[in-house]
C-alpha cells in the first residue's frame, strides 16, 4: 500500500506543515541514563547466582545433618521418688562411659550411697588395713610407749613430755 496515494493536496500540505513542528526537548539526563543502562547490562540474569545459592544451602544442610545430635535423657533415682534427675549427655559420651565402667560396680556403689544417705557415715564399711596380729596391729600411743598389756593407757606425765619434745625436734 502506497502511503501517499490516498492523500489530497490539502492533506499533504497539512501533513508537511505539521511534521515541521519540533517535539519539545526532553530533560532526561543522557549521562545518567547511560550509567543506568551500563549497570543494568551486567545484571542480565539470576540463573547462576541462584544456582550457586541453592548448592551452598544444600551443602550447609548436608553438613548439619552429619553432626551428632545430642538429646536429653530423663532418669529417676530409686531413692528419690518424684524428683527427676536430668542428665544431658550425647550418645557418644554415654557410649564411652558404658564401655569404661563395668556395669556390675554401679549397683554396689548406688546401694552404698543409699545406705550412707539413710544411716550416715556409720554405714560405711570398715577398712581393715592391718591384720589382727600382734605385730601388725595398728600403731597406737600405747604400743609406741612399749605398753603391750592392752590395758587402757593411764596418763603418764613424763612420757607425755618426752613424746612432745621428740615430736617438736623431728
Amino acid at each position, binding site marked *: *500500500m502506497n502511503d501517499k496515494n490516498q492523500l489530497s493536496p490539502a492533506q499533504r500540505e497539512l501533513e508537511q506543515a505539521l511534521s515541521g*513542528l519540533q517535539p519539545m526537548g526532553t530533560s532526561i539526563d543522557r549521562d545518567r*541514563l547511560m550509567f543506568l*543502562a551500563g549497570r543494568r547490562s551486567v545484571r542480565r540474569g539470576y540463573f547462576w547466582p541462584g544456582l550457586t545459592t541453592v548448592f551452598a544451602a544444600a551443602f550447609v544442610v548436608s553438613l548439619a545433618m552429619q553432626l551428632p545430635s545430642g538429646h536429653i535423657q530423663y532418669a529417676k533415682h530409686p531413692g528419690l521418688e518424684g524428683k527427676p534427675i536430668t542428665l544431658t549427655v550425647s550418645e557418644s559420651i554415654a557410649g564411652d562411659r558404658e564401655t569404661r565402667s563395668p556395669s556390675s560396680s554401679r549397683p554396689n556403689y548406688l546401694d552404698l550411697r543409699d545406705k550412707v544417705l539413710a544411716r550416715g557415715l556409720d554405714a560405711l564399711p570398715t577398712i581393715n588395713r592391718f591384720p589382727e596380729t600382734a605385730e601388725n596391729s595398728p600403731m597406737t600411743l600405747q604400743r609406741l610407749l612399749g605398753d603391750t598389756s592392752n590395758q587402757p593407757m593411764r596418763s603418764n606425765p613424763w612420757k607425755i613430755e618426752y613424746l612432745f619434745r621428740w615430736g617438736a625436734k623431728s
Partner: protein
Amino acid sequence: MGSIGPQKLATWFDAYAAQLVLYARQWLDVGLAEDAVQDVFVRMAAIRSEPANAKAWLFRSVRNEAISKIRSRWRRQNHEAKRAANQPNWFEPRPDELVDSAMAQSALESLPAEQQEVVILRLWAGMTFQEISDIVGRSVSTVADRYHSALAAIRRMMEKCHER
C-alpha cells in the same frame, strides 16, 4: 546480532528520545513520559540481541510502558490533576513554523486516542503504515483510515480557529 553497545544506545537516544516522549505524552504527563522513555532505554541495554528494527522496538516498548504506568496514574489522579496545569507544551514554538504549535497541540489532544497515536507515529516518528500497524496491532488499512480521518479532523479544527 550481538548485545547493544553504549554508542548505539546513545545514537538512538539522540535520534528518538524527543519523539518517544511526545508519543508517551498521549497517555502520561511529561514527567512520567520521560520516566517511561528512560526505563525503556535502560531495559534495551540489557537485552541479549539487537532488535531487527530498533526504532519500532523503542516505540512499541514505550507504548507498553506508558500503558502500564497509566494504571498507576489513575490511582493518583488527584495529584496528577494538580500537576497538569504546569505541563510544558508538546512542541517547541518557532518563528518559522507553518502552523501554530499550540493550535496543533490543541487539535491533536482533541482527537480520539487511536487517531492521535497514529498521527504522532506517522508525522514525528516518520513511520510507515506497516510499521505503525505492527506497533498498534491493527491492520494497515485500519491504520491508514485512522490517519486520514485524523488529518481531516485537524484541518477542520484549524479552519475553525482561523475563522474566529
